């Protein structure tokens, strides 16, 4: 039983990280109705930019490598690159495609994915890099001693960071003026525009926030698995999370993430051995597909009514 809980907790913690990536999708989808397939590439771009800056900054500024100043400076630079990327995407790619069918926008973001991946690797190179956030990947002693369970400290802290981010965003959405404007835009673009909400600013803010979320996700994933191209595949796992949770719901992204994370780990451990292992790669997709057959709008998504 201890082992079951160990797997379950490990799964839930990695689920939080899936949810973090999914959150970026939800933010943009809610505000602009664009399904941003490039979110995964943005996560990769963010992590690679951060690592790249930590490598080159000591040479440029004379700061000691690995010092706090380098970390925060690199963080600030990576964040500003993400915001610039987000705003540029909004202006160059999505503005000219306004009023096109959603599927066209979706394909444009697939193009964006390739572009961003190419640019990221073109600037920083293709080698796999380590990313050290200063959090040790060791078992939590308290759980080890009392329950004899192996739970990584890194995962717990990463999940905590993610939760702080979720709560902050929830507060931002619920109680600030910008948040109200965001929700208004999400509900109805034209109505929001007609009551004087500056649509362009709101979209720029949303893409900026999505860039910020991508950076956090990139840092945590990068520290866990190394900053490499495979990061973009990890980000693809956010898609089944979205399907489970519904495209428009922030709580849905979190709960979907937890379900996907836990079920894929449990499936790998308990079903994997019967079929030769490696089912983690597709299990979330099949789960999401089967789930869709029962509930096409996801757990918390808005019910879609078709009219002729």
């Amino acid at each position, binding site marked *: 039983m201890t082992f079951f809980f160990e797997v379950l907790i490990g799964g839930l913690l990695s689920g939080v990280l899936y949810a973090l990536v999914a959150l970026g999708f939800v933010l943009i989808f809610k505000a602009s109705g664009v399904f941003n397939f490039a979110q995964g590439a943005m996560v990769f771009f963010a992590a690679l930019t951060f690592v790249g800056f930590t490598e080159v900054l000591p040479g440029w500024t004379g700061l000691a490598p690995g010092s706090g100043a380098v970390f925060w400076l690199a963080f600030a630079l990576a964040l500003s690159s993400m915001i610039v990327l987000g705003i540029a995407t909004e202006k160059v790619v999505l503005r000219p495609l306004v009023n096109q069918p959603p599927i066209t926008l979706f394909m444009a973001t697939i193009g964006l994915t390739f*572009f961003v991946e190419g640019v990221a690797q*073109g600037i920083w190179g*293709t080698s796999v890099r380590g990313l050290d956030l200063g959090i040790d990947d060791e078992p939590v002693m308290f759980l080890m001693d009392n329950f004899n369970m192996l739970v990584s400290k890194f995962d717990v802290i990463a999940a905590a960071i993610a939760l702080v981010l979720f709560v902050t965003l929830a507060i931002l959405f619920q109680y600030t003026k910008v948040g109200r404007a965001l929700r208004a835009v999400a509900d109805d673009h034209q109505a929001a525009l007609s009551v004087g909400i500056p649509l362009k600013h709101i979209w720029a803010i949303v893409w900026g926030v999505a860039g910020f979320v991508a950076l956090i996700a990139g840092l945590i994933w990068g520290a866990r698995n190394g900053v490499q191209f495979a990061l973009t595949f990890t980000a693809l796992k956010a898609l089944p999370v979205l399907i489970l949770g519904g495209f428009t719901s922030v709580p849905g992204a979190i709960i979907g993430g937890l379900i996907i994370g836990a079920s894929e780990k449990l499936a790998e451990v308990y079903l994997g051995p019967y079929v030769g292992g490696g089912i983690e790669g597709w299990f979330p997709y*099949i789960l999401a597909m089967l789930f869709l*057959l029962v509930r096409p709008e996801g757990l918390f998504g808005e019910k879609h009514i*078709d009219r002729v």
Partner: protein
Amino acid sequence: MLYREAGQFKASYMQDQQIFPIRQDQIGFWAMIAFFFLVVPVIANQYWLQAILIPVLIFSLAALGLNILTGYCGQLSLGSAAFMAVGAFATYNFMLRVDGIPFIAALLLGGLCAAAVGILFGLPSLRIKGFYLAVATLAAQFFIVWVLVKFGWFSNYSTSGVITAQAVTIFGYTFTTPESKYLLTLSIVVVLALLAKNMVRSSTGRKWMAVRDMDVAAEVIGIRLMHTKLQAFAISSFYCGVAGALYAYMYLGTVEPEGFNLDLSFRILFMIIIGGVASILGSFIGAAFIVLLPVFLNIMMHSAIGAFVPANVAANLELIIFGALIIFFLIVEPHGLARLWQLTKEKLRIWPFPH
């Protein structure tokens, strides 16, 4: 002046319904066919046949398959490479396990297997659409490749699922030279493309387009949604499956399941976006464009920089240019290169007058 239909009268329904109603188009079509069947095998060298023309034809077929599903029926699929894999591996197994089976029979059976798998993964399309369906087709992509890697039976227990295509023999003739392979591929692709062209301009294709434009409205006017969508999935997967088998047998010779990855699916999707969504001609133009682009870029880089360009720089540049082109086409010409050709023809018909 030359391209004008004035004076060409249609006296029967058959004349009115032919694929190319304008005589100049007909002449152009037959000239193209003659050129590709008779002239190209003579003038093209091994490199052109093996590395460019054969893959262009094969990818055209795959793009045609995806175009039927995504372009005509409006069901976005990100799993076309997986259906290609099904076709390739099914054909391999038919060739391996059925004694004396003709290649064409194995090829068609492989396509039918792909169609069956396509129907299976098309089932969710009855309940879900748009992005949701795209994610469901990702399930097909990852699941099928995993099955082919994990279960050795499909690849006759070779290491990591690699299969080596058997020699292809038809009526005692073995296809070994690039010229013969090219001609065989070309014949299959031409037959299937004509079939597809006729499908999309008959009631079948019109039903697909009705479903694409608005499925509820289509259902109201009496189109059976389930039947139509699954039909599109089956036919699309059949085309992809045959393309996959040709990819293994006529082009690479040795393939592994991992070769049919998500990247290949995206490549095929890009072909139809750049070539033209919902256009048979567009599938061919798009495939040629995507296959030729890296070759062209390579030559450009060599002549621009002169020295040897590192492979990873070239690969990244390719990614950037692919991505930028996709966005460019979607913004400037959402109907792709095929639409440009159509516009040219319309201009030609009234040339030299502006209206």
